[in-house]
């Protein structure tokens, strides 16, 4: 379980998170929605210790990770996987090296086993025969799927998705949504996704939380989100320029 308690974060004069409170239960998929630049990715980076909050706590299975040193953070991160918005594949490495990096660095598995595991993980995300390709040779959708394969290659307990469907066509977006759901079902992982793609949020979420003006202003199931009267959430899910959220 992940508990985010009163987390504040500022960059220079810009206060991005203003007391975020959120609990993610074991095994659920929590989707955090909100406008671009509202701090969703910042919140995600706090959960995996890439950023430290100015105030507040982040508890992973009851332990506050905000006071962890580098070694403790690295130990924690082995339990996490993360899919980045632009995939963040290592340009200088092949697909095989990207997906197998964690296994090669942190396990004593023989190379043949690692190759098998890489091939199996790539198959899970619907890719095969691209192990020797470099990221520059892949399409946007393939990069996302390789990024997902890298995130789940170490069999993590938690997977974080930063805008998983941004930058891909609607059909590929649906393929990625299906993959997120099937990975969760196959691997029993706890997932946290941040997105402004409402279709994606409804498809993959067990619960949806909305981040607005640095705080979580709504939490509910996809059904509750669809039917809510909350004016900010309504405006966001309807994609309307009229309402309490300033359009510009």
């Amino acid at each position, binding site marked *: 379980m992940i508990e985010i308690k009163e987390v504040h974060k500022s960059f220079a004069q810009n206060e991005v998170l203003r007391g975020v409170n959120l609990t993610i239960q074991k095994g659920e998929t929590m989707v955090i929605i909100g406008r671009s630049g509202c701090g969703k990715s910042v919140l995600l980076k706090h959960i995996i210790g890439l950023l430290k909050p100015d105030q507040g706590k982040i508890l992973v299975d009851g332990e506050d990770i905000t006071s962890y040193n580098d070694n403790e953070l*690295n130990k924690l991160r082995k339990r996490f*996987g993360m899919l*980045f918005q*632009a995939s963040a594949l*290592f340009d200088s490495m092949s697909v095989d090296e990207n997906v197998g990096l*964690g296994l090669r*660095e942190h396990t004593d598995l023989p190379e043949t086993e690692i190759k098998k595991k890489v091939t199996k993980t790539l198959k899970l995300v619907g890719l095969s025969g691209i192990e020797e390709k470099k990221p520059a040779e892949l399409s946007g959708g393939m990069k996302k799927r390789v990024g997902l394969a890298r995130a789940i290659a170490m069999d993590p307990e938690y997977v974080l998705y930063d805008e998983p469907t941004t930058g891909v066509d609607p059909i590929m977006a649906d393929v990625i949504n299906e993959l997120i759901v099937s990975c969760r079902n196959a691997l029993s992982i706890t997932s946290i996704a941040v997105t402004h793609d409402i279709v994606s949020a409804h498809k993959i979420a067990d619960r949806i939380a909305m981040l607005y003006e640095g705080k979580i202003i709504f939490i509910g199931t996809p059904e509750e989100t669809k039917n809510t009267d909350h004016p900010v959430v309504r405006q966001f899910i309807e994609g309307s320029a009229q309402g309490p959220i300033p359009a510009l």
Partner: protein
Amino acid sequence: MGRNTLVFFQDVGGLAILVKRVFLGLPSAFTRSRLTTEQMLLMGVNSLPLIALVSIFTGAVTAVQAVYQISDYVPMRYIGTAVGKAVMIELAPVLTALVVAGRVGAAIAAELGTMKDTEQIDALETLALDPVKYLVVPRFVAGFIMLPVLTIFADTIAILGGLGVSTASLHVSPHVFLNGLKDFFKMMDLTSGLLKAFVFGSIISIIGCYQGFKTTGGAEGVGRSATKAVVISSVLILISDYVVASILFG
């Protein structure tokens, strides 16, 4: 306190922390020897043609100008001495370092800057890998080892350049040139140049990595980091050249 002063002290502090983390992470250069070897190839072997070109002309011009400066009052048999000492103590280490700073320092800053901008460095951290151990330590070790190697190569080529010009157009026989080089050679001539090269190699890789890590602002930021890496490395090379020379010969 002005903004520039604050940025200067932030950079000094940031560099000190990076250097400390690199030294603490040095054992990882052996456990990840493949990464270190790759960087040694990129920094060293791939720089050889450019270093050879620069060195041959450096040796040649040193010989020509030495003749112009000393021919009225020093016998021509000392031309080999003048070329050898100038090349080994000063010209080969400094010019090699400046060439490598331009070629490799900029490349390191641009590569790491792009990695920072595209979240690849964050991705390394999420895979529980320390970017300093994974990216900086191999580049530091490669710079530390390869700059002296390149300097020895530059010494050899520059002396051959001086020998060629002396023989072809300055009417000094190879025998006389080489005797002049040999008779007044001191091991200190070579070791002082190599000591400088160790320092310069460390500066180039650390500054390149530091500038790469602090890149912000997309493609423009990457370009700015590469330029800064070259300028700052070059200035520090010249300053440290003076400091090392003062310590060794002062």
